[in-house]
């Protein structure tokens, strides 16, 4: 017979209102995706906090290494030309 486990873990992402980003809530255990969705619903939306749920097998999440933080994120910090405030707009121009 198969061994008894608490079943696989799934990461739960919920959207709080239509159009909002999906945010990570935590994890739950389930044998399959349908069970994972239902368990996510019963665990993380007991107070009608959501409009939609994603579940992802925990093993499918790949996380960046904290040691790579500088390499990954610092190079973006001097690219200020990506921000709208970088640009000078002539006085009087509207709707730009």
């Amino acid at each position, binding site marked *: *017979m*198969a061994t008894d486990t*608490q*079943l696989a873990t799934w990461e739960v992402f919920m959207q709080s209102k239509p159009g909002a980003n999906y945010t990570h809530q935590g994890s*739950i*255990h*389930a*044998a*399959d995706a*349908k*069970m994972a969705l*239902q*368990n996510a619903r*019963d*665990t993380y939306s*007991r107070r009608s906090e959501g409009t939609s749920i994603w579940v992802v097998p925990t093993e499918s999440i790949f996380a960046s290494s904290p040691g790579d933080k500088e390499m990954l994120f610092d190079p973006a910090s001097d690219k200020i030309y990506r921000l709208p405030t970088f640009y000078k707009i002539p006085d009087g121009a509207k709707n730009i």
Partner: protein
Amino acid sequence: MADQNNLFKYLLRLGDNALVLSHRLSEWCSRAPLIEEDLALTNFSLDMIGRAQALLKYAGEVEGKGRTEDDLAYKRAERQFYNHLVMELPNGDFAFTMARQLLVSAFECLLFEALSNSKDETIAAIAAKTLKEVKYHRAHAEDWVIRLGDGTEESYQRMQHAVNALWMYTGELFEADEVDAELIREGIAVDQNSLRPQWQEYIGQVLTEAKLQVPADGYMQTGSRKGIHTEHLGHILSEMQYLQRAYPDATW
């Protein structure tokens, strides 16, 4: 104008179904096979307590004797309860509980969908809200019945046993008496018997997918419409009504 007494009785039947099954499901608290499932069973129970509250409150108003939903829940005796017998059966194992949820919620989906068109606005409103809840109950139960029917040899045996044991309590779901007949004429109630073919078809599909046998219709239990119950209901009530009966003067 409906005979208020018929309507009162009809509301008690609907309300008692929710009250008694919510009680059974609440007994699962801290006893489910997975903590996630504990939360799910509690949610079903909470849905049903809410439904019982709404229906019994309305029943009290229809009766017009000043009885509240709590009076009706906590101060009636066995013979004055009208829930279907299947609701009061002990939980058994998880297979039994899920099989019951499937059989009952499949019936309730059809019932409350039809009742959401009731000419009685209060019933129609309660039915519309309930329909959303029971659809979820049915989906949850359906998944479990299939998982367990088609899981291991042990889970198959348990699930088949549960379905077989429950089958003789399903005939009662579709019974109708003169109370129903009167309210059906007035467009308030639903002809339960007309729901049967759809119910059978759906249950047949699920059980087949679950690799389970659909039991043959044989002897069917009956009695709840006259307040005749199994021996189990009395024990539910002696527990549920304990404080109200031990301290009749107290409010809680």
